[in-house]
């Protein structure tokens, strides 16, 4: 079913909307959540929460990119869930990803002055200046929390190439943020 038709079902308050969402995007949502939580039952709960939030937000929201809309919700809920769980249960892969991102914003005092929304807008602008392959590798890693090996398999690259691309993109992002006055 086309996204537009699924959204129409939400507007009609037809519960079939959730089933159609699950059929089309359940696997994608589960994959995003599982990458963060590394636990099938936790991931399943987050995916169910995602449908619950989607049901509450549509209408009035009409997502322009339904898949991206769902991914953002499931990612957010999964990260919150991760915070909720004990540190011992954290997925090492996610911890590594987040530590890599830490290096981009070395001075927390400066970073705290920038709203997350504004920072997201700046990062979006930066990503638009990047080549498509570097941009998408970056997003797969830090937004979808895919592992380096999964990204390499997805795009047919060597793992070393993925690591190198991520390193260079992070370096360029760091320089870009500095230029924008986000970093000292």
């Amino acid at each position, binding site marked *: 079913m086309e996204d537009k038709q699924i959204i129409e079902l939400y507007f009609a308050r037809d519960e079939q909307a959730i089933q159609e969402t699950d059929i089309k995007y359940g696997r994608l949502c589960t994959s995003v959540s599982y990458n963060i939580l590394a636990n*099938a039952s936790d991931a399943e709960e*987050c995916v169910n929460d995602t449908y619950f939030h989607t049901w509450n937000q549509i209408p*009035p929201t009409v997502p*322009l990119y339904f898949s991206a809309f769902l991914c953002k919700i499931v990612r957010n809920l999964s990260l919150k869930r991760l915070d909720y769980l004990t540190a011992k249960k954290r997925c090492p892969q996610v911890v590594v990803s987040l530590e890599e*991102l*830490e290096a981009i914003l070395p001075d*927390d005092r400066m970073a705290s002055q920038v709203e997350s*929304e504004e*920072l*997201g807008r700046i990062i979006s602008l930066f990503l638009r200046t990047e080549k498509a392959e570097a941009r998408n590798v970056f997003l797969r890693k830090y937004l979808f929390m895919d592992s380096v090996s999964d990204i390499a398999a997805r795009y047919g690259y060597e793992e070393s190439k993925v690591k190198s691309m991520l390193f260079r993109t992070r370096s360029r992002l760091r320089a870009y943020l500095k230029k924008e006055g986000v970093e000292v």
Partner: protein
Amino acid sequence: MKTSKIVDALHYIDEDLVAEAITYRPKEEDVAEEIIKISEANGKETTMKKKGKIAKRTLLVAALIAVLVLGTLTVAVAAFRGSLAESLRSMFKVSGELEEDLLTREDGLLQIIETPAALETSKSQTMENTEIVETVRETIEKEEDIFDQEGDITSVTCNGITVRVVQALVDRYHVNLIFRIEGLGEANKKGVGFRKFEINIDGKAAGSGGGGLEFVGEDYVEYSWSVRPEDYNNEGPGWFLGKQIEIKFTDVDMFLGKEMGSYIIQEGEWNLKWTMQGTVDTNIFMLNHELEPEIIITEVELTPISAVVRYEFLKQTVQGQTANGGVANFIKDPPFILSAILKGGTLLEYIGGMGRDGHVPGSTTEFVSIRALRMLIEPSEVDSLIFRDSNTGKEYIVPLYDK
């Protein structure tokens, strides 16, 4: 602390970038090996590598190469029938009298992009039929040459496929473009799209947007793209009117289903440019309507395709419980526009569409919601608007006029 800052920031990445990351595949020549994803019973994916080309895609491309004999680049403005594009009809639920009104109004809302005289003076360039990649490269070189020339390019044919911009609905906040694509041959048109779509206005990336296949005709399809040009240099709403718009379509691809993803069926670039026209007409209603204590609607601005609502609303984060018992922080939103009631009593349900909402930079109380409408309206006919709180489900009727 700083980790959570940047993790939170990634939540605000533009959705078109996120959508691209979901479907993006590198060009075939960049990929050394084919990757096949296998879905296991537990929902987890594993991957295996297979040497060689992707058989299905090769077949599709080969089938098209057989019918694509010439690459032709036409600099012309195409005539389009004097009625509304099917896509605009369905996107904005326009029919009957409303369509007639739209076609005859002179305020610039509807742009029928045609200059028939240009057809007589159009130039065509025909390239040799060589290997497909060489043809594409040759075409791009020619297009760059032509981009240096003055004048509009609203129709381009490359490798047998023609892309033309035919109509647009444009106001101070939104640009809705309709393209017509011809020459797709035997391709399953329902799955056809473009691998990449870039749009610049006055030399700047045009902000957030999205679109896709809207209508499938017998020998053509209609493709839409809607954008909300962000404000640049505080130029304000409508800054883009009268400015040059440049659009680049890259590679026709086809969605082959969830498992196979999208594959390029015809490489090429289709570059268009013309001057953006549109209307600055708008209707502003100054209000002071309290929805709840500390949620006040101060102003509503309506055009036939946009609604802008200004609120006095204190920025706040609220903690809530998720369905599985977890606790999460949510940024509280005010109620958003849902429906409209016309002066005759007719209810237009769910008019509020995609949009951008948030506090004005530097303010913690002034909140603005800019929404595209999901149907064409006549602002002077609107009596009141219905707003809905997405958290509580509570609805509010807000009259636009004093009773």
